[in-house]
């Protein structure tokens, strides 16, 4: 065989292969073609093997021709493969049109109770300011619910909390046990435990009052209590902390207002309102035309309370606050009847 023969063989092979390639319409046959011409035992490889009989000079020349042919065929293969793929995508994108307006597979959607959600939101807001969540007992003693909070027996301030008493006769006859009327007993419990160390906690939980229910009153409700005690904590800190809370929970542009109020376990005592976000302070039904909505009670921890749990009130100061969760959720979601929360009608719950 001569070099001419070899290069003519190569060029014949190339043109045959290219002609054949043009006719191929599916990927399987294209693969067969690739194996036939470019495979390890393919025709081009066989042709190359026949070059061994040529003199070295001619062999190199023919080898180069063969490599050129290989490159050409490989490129042709790649191009054809791409064409075939595109053609196949084009086909599949026009086949089997769906009625996309039909509903998808039902995916089960659970959810959290609106009270859980608001408790979380509020705890998270305070967590961002360094408050830690702590929980305490719902069944409490008179001592923690009242006496340690500067509310002695027969004090008229007790009228502020209509109390459900637990029948403890036969267990501890002289022991006064009740359902906590607020989360405030945890103030005393936490400080006793912390033993004159700084405190910054938030206490969510259920509370109870002996109360007839109506659209705005429920005997069973959730509160969140906050307490920060340290050297150098001031009324200004109380204002700043609660202002930040109002912005986090009710929106960055909220205005707040503090007025003097009374709770026996704080001095000075305060009530915080936010500007009505429903009417932008113009006055509406929710804010009773005042433009302001009361959201929580607060104050500086009363020196008698600090003293009672072993904190020196001339060294330590602190603030405390408490708020009703249902009221917060009602404000945020425009819920008009508190009784919806614990009636557990799914038509209500599913909206949250």
């Amino acid at each position, binding site marked *: 065989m001569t070099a001419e023969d070899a290069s003519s063989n190569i060029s014949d092979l190339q043109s045959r292969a290219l002609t054949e390639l043009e006719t191929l319409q599916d990927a399987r046959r294209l693969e067969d073609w690739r194996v036939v011409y470019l495979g390890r035992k393919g025709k081009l490889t066989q042709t190359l093997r026949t070059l061994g009989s040529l003199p070295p000079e001619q062999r190199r020349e023919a080898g180069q021709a063969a490599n050129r042919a290989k490159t050409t065929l490989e490129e042709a293969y790649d191009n054809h493969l791409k064409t075939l793929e595109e053609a196949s995508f084009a086909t599949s994108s026009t086949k089997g049109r769906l009625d996309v307006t039909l509903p998808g597979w039902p995916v089960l959607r659970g959810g959290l109770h609106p009270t859980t959600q608001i408790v979380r939101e509020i705890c998270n807001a305070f967590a961002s300011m360094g408050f830690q969540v702590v929980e305490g007992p719902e069944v409490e003693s008179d001592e923690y619910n009242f006496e340690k909070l500067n509310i002695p027996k027969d004090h008229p301030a007790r009228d502020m909390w209509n109390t459900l*008493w637990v029948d*403890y006769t036969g267990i501890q006859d002289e022991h006064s046990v009740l359902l906590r009327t607020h989360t405030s007993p945890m103030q005393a419990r936490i400080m006793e435990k912390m033993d004159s160390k700084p405190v910054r906690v938030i206490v969510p939980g259920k509370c109870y009052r002996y109360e007839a229910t109506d659209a705005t009153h429920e005997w069973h409700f959730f509160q969140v209590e906050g307490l920060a005690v*340290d050297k150098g904590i001031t009324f200004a800190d109380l204002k700043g902390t609660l202002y930040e809370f109002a912005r986090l929970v009710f929106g960055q542009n909220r205005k707040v207002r503090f007025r003097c109020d009374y709770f026996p376990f704080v001095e*000075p005592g305060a009530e915080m309102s936010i500007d009505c976000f429903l009417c932008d302070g113009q006055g509406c039904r929710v804010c009773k035309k005042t433009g302001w909505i009361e959201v929580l009670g607060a104050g500086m921890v009363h020196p008698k309370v600090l003293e009672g749990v072993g904190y020196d009130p001339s060294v330590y*100061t602190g603030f405390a606050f408490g708020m009703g969760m249902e009221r917060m959720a009602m404000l945020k979601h425009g819920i008009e009847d508190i009784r919806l*929360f614990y009636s557990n009608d799914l038509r209500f719950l599913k909206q949250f």
Partner: protein
Amino acid sequence: MQVPLSWLKKYVPITLPPRELAHRLTMGGVEVGGIGEIGTSWEPDKVVVGHVLKVDPHPNADRLRLPTVDVGNGEHITVVCGAPNVAAGQKIAFAKEGARLFNTHSGHIEPLRPANIRGFKSVGMVCSVLELGIGDDHTGILVLPDESEIGSPLADILGDVIFETETTPNRPDCLSMLGIAHEVAAHTGQAVTEPDADYPEDDDPIEKQATVEIADPDLCYRYTASLISGVKVGPSPQWLQDALVKAGQRPINNVVDITNYVMLEYNQPLHAFDFGKVKERRIIVRQARKGEELETLDGVKRKLSPPMLVIADASDAIGLAGVMGGANSEVSDGTTTILLESANFDAVNTRRTAAALKLSTGASYRFERSIRAELAPLALRRATKLILDIAGGKAAKGIIDHYPGEKPAPTVHLTRKRIKQVLGTDIPPDKVESVLTSLGFTKKKSSTKNDGLHLEAPYWRSDIAIEDDVVEEIARIIGYDEMPTTTIATSIPHHAPQPMWELKQRTRDLLAAAGMREIVTYSLTSQATIEKAETLEPKPLAMANPMSAQFQYLRTSLRGSMLETLATNWHTSLRDGLRLFEVSRVYMPTKADLPDERETLIGAIAGRRLPLSWLAKELGEVDMGFFDAKGVVQSLLSSLRIEAAFEPSENNALLPGRTASIVCGDHTVGIVGEVHPRILARFDLTETPVTIFEIDLPKLLQSASAASRSYATASRFPESLRDIALVVDSGVPSSNIEAFVSQHKMVQRVTPFDVFTGGDVPTGKKSIAYEIVFQSEKDTLTSEQVGRALEDILRRLQKEFGAELRSQS
């Protein structure tokens, strides 16, 4: 309390518009919850003072009459009037045509139109308080003071603004007009003028006419009394009646009205005795005798017992001290001599007495709140003066004043340092002093301290005891909004981990993600629910004062309320399937100070597995059961990285054979099972099965904290799958077979994928098909290796469980 501004103006000039004043009071701690306006709707030219010139009979009706009224400017109008009390010479409120009044027939406020009444054309009206909107009485017309000027606008005479204030328990002084006046003064920089209390003392000295003895000085701190003879009891003058009505009180007679008026002025309760009925002219303040009876002024005979305090004469109780007078010494039309009492009684004893007798009065309400004993003689003299002015008579010389409970006025030492320590801002001393002076504090000399202010609280304030009380006074008068706003400067304290809180949060999130909806139900339950749910043990704690039988017991199980919630939502939600859970406490009685409050999870699953879907209509028609609930529990526990076994179990409320206990390590942490139809029927849940699961979270927490999460490298080598179907006794638990197979070192996992009984499977047997995944950590398993392993497994299954191979692939 209802505070008419007209009354307030007697003591302090009101320089601010009412709404602004209400705002300042509210911000300062005396909340004005409502503002009532009287007379703002009366047009000055249409509702005026009229003078009744004559009253003629109506020609056609006996009950109706025709008064002719001078309405000013010489205009005389004759109208029809049905009121029996209309009489010539009266000054009355006259409404002209078009005046906007309350129409007693329609029940609306509307313009007054001419009317033809039994043949007489009437244009205008003589008004009652009901038509004017200032009272309920429609039986008679309102008679105005004689000095009222004819034709002048009625609003000028009767118009008023009334603040509805809410008084916190620490501020009894704000239950009085003078108390509010002092607040107004502090907020507006005005001075308070105290009422006139001077009167001539023309009669014999009081000591010669009456004696007072305090037998129990621990319960009566002060007793003052005056004596007035020759009084004439009768109706109060109009101004006094008006003032009381506007303040929400009912006028009775001049003497009683004055005691009420002065109580509202000073906050000091007073009582007038008909001295003619006081035996031996002696007053004794003593504890009631056991079983002693007293008919109080409200006509109720009350059985008393010590330590209730009574006012007695020489033989009987004639009043319940600090609460209510006795009927046997009541002032009546025939009374001529009055002993006026102004005393100070113990707060706690008064509160207990009022509570025991269920008799809360204006007096007891005030004494409960610890009013100052300094008020007693001031109010006594003021009331004595008014009685002399209004009811006539002569006052005895001097007053009786027994004061066994006398103590120095409360003083507080206030430093600039403390103000800064509490408020976080330095308030200039001159500002501090001016605020405190405006509130009535007085500076005293301190014998021990040089720095700061030594302050005596004003005599009407009983809430000032410590330095911080005064700090609050300063802050509230300057305004809380004027105080600075800062963030806490100290570092965040060390926080202890709160694993239970975290577990509850995670549990709720995971269950919600598994399609479950959270509910929160009441902690208190009823005997009926406990019995229906058969959660009788342990016996729950009961309320000592339950609101109702519905909320009588602290629940020891969440089951009852869950089944009730299912029942409530049954018909609205059953087609979509009900998947509910609750994380709440149950309250287990203990011998300790407080019960054991255990955080508990309950879940319930019932109804259709999926909402109706065109994609798989049949799935929407399948009711959920045991395995739906178990699947949720498994998913929860696996997400919490807790390994649990489900062991066949029994429970009185659940179906035998369809109940499993959830076991983590050595602990049973909960149960899952189908609720017994007997119980479901009691909750009217009869259409589909209900499966519940209950988990004790403290026990789960123990398992969770033991569970570690160390990383294991996944094998690089391929898996080999084999399916086998075994026939075993139907009592053999699949979990035992799975565990047994899993022990083989080449087995990666084993999953049952078909369970079959009947057909060619013998009775008492079942066929279970498993997919077994073989994999090695070291190399690729050959099919010969896998085959040998499977044979080995099958041989041992045969030995262990008597399992026969039914098929293999």
